[in-house]
């Protein structure tokens, strides 16, 4: 009974926020464009275009370091392939994986910035805090409106990415379908939800301290830095996306989320939210 009520009220906040977000291009644009770049534009340039128009073998030498530093099990798989096949394989299945961490981070922090800091910015928070909705209901509703669309975007981006990759691999590997596979399913369905929650948690904390949407966004953008580290690491061939990495990510983000959740519950007090905005 108590929980059904909490959920109903949280959904009320969710629907209200979603109605606002749907009409806000400042929020919609980045969470639609960035995934499109990562799942369609970049893969097309790197995978599909070379496989269709053909590339001279020398073009692959620039990425030679990646191949040299490949972990032995992957090296064994790509050894029998042509240069073009192995490049497509490595890029499609490994190199692009970290981008799928950026999508939920970016989406969740944009959405949470709008939902929390944006409401302070637009000075609508006071009337909301004057209602009998509890702190928990407000927090849950706003977490949901940041989480659900983030995951919808991430999963859609993954579906789109599978299509793009498979279209290019279909001819290259004689009708073989590369994606989805188990590793990627684990990435999308285990890791990215935890990543989105971490993005929300950090953004909520930041939003409590800052004046408005823009500041919250800029501060939360710092979250992308470790992921960029991962990408550059891969270019250098240092880290490789695989089962171990998935397990490390799950463990790391689960702990982070737990800490954020506990701290968040403690600091999310309606009076604080209002007073920090004055």
């Amino acid at each position, binding site marked *: 009974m108590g929980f059904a009520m909490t959920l109903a009220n949280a959904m009320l*906040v969710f629907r209200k926020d979603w109605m606002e977000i749907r009409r806000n291009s400042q929020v919609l644009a980045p969470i639609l464009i960035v995934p499109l770049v990562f799942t369609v534009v970049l893969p097309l340039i790197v995978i599909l275009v070379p496989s269709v128009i053909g590339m001279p073998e020398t073009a692959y030498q620039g990425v030679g370091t990646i191949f040299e530093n490949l972990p032995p099990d992957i090296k064994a798989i790509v050894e029998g392939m042509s240069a073009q096949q192995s490049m497509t394989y490595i890029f499609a299945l490994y190199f692009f994986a970290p981008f799928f961490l950026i999508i939920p981070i970016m989406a969740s922090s944009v959405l949470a910035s709008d939902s929390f800091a944006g409401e302070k910015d637009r000075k609508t928070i006071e009337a909301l*805090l*004057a209602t009998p909705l509890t702190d928990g209901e407000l927090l849950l509703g706003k977490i949901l409106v940041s989480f659900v669309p983030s995951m919808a975007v991430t999963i859609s981006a993954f579906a789109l990415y599978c299509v793009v990759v498979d279209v290019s691999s279909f001819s290259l590997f004689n009708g073989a379908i590369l994606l989805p596979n188990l590793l990627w399913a684990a990435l999308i369905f285990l890791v990215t939800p935890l990543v989105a929650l971490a993005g929300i948690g950090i953004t909520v904390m930041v939003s409590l301290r800052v004046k408005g949407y823009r500041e919250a966004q800029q501060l939360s953008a710092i979250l992308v830095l470790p992921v960029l580290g991962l990408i550059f690491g891969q270019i250098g061939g240092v880290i490789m996306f695989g089962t171990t990495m998935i397990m490390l990510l799950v463990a790391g983000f689960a702990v982070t989320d737990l800490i954020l959740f506990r701290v968040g519950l403690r600091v999310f007090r309606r009076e604080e939210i209002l007073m920090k905005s004055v």
Partner: protein
Amino acid sequence: MPVISVSGLSKSFGGLDAVSGLSFDVEEGEIYGLLGPNGAGKTTTVRMLACIISPSGGTAAVAGHDIRADPVAVRRSVGVLTESPSLYERLTAEENLTFFARAYGMTDDRKVSGRVKELLQFFQLWDRRGEKSAVFSKGMKQKLAIARALVHDPPVIFLDEPTAGLDPEASKLIRDLITEMSQKERHTIMLCTHRLEDAEKVCSRVMVVNMGRRVVVGSPDEIRSEVAGKAKLEVMVANPSTALVEAAASVAGVSAGAIAENGRLIFELDDLNAATPLVVRALVESGARVLTVNTFLPSLEEAYLRLIKGDGWDSR
């Protein structure tokens, strides 16, 4: 029994005492004004009474609920027009009200839409219900924000600066609507304002506050006569003299008399209606050739400015 009962309410921000030991009662059905200059502590007081922020000291009961012990019950029983309109600009007028109706616990769809329609019609916004509130004028936004405060039909309503930023015409409309609304639905209303006109035309009782403290409480008339000094009678005579002044000043109800620089005779009266004919008769009997007689009521503005400057007035 008072609907709002406040005792020793205080709030400090760091070292600043925004509200210091306010105590007052508001009776059911009253429109109670909180009048004071910017920074007097009006908004802070309303925020505490509406359980948006917690007091640093003292307490209050609103609609029968203690603001410290049962803030949720208080929030349920009050409607607030916040200092800034706090409207969702991307939502339509109707969507704004519907969301808040639900947030205040109204679950029956038919009741919600009925109430929303009733309020939009009352505030002359029904034809614009489908437009985003972003396109509304300031006056329309203010009307919509007042409608929002009323949406769950709360017994107590707080209106924080309902006419701020509006032109005189829109201000008058809002004042009229508040008066009409208080007659139509029996709410107890507390209205904060820095504008005398609002307090004078809308409120049955007014508490003047300054620097977080209560200065005086009373009806606008009481405040005017208590604080602004006495009513004045100005008589122009063809033959001014101190003898005439002395003759008239001895009449009962006259507290002072003098000759002004322009030769007119000025008297301060306790009660204009009672003393004016007596003064004029005394003057005529003493040989004055009276040309004109003018009376001046003290203005509330004069009273207010005196109070705020603290002209010898004990503000404790």
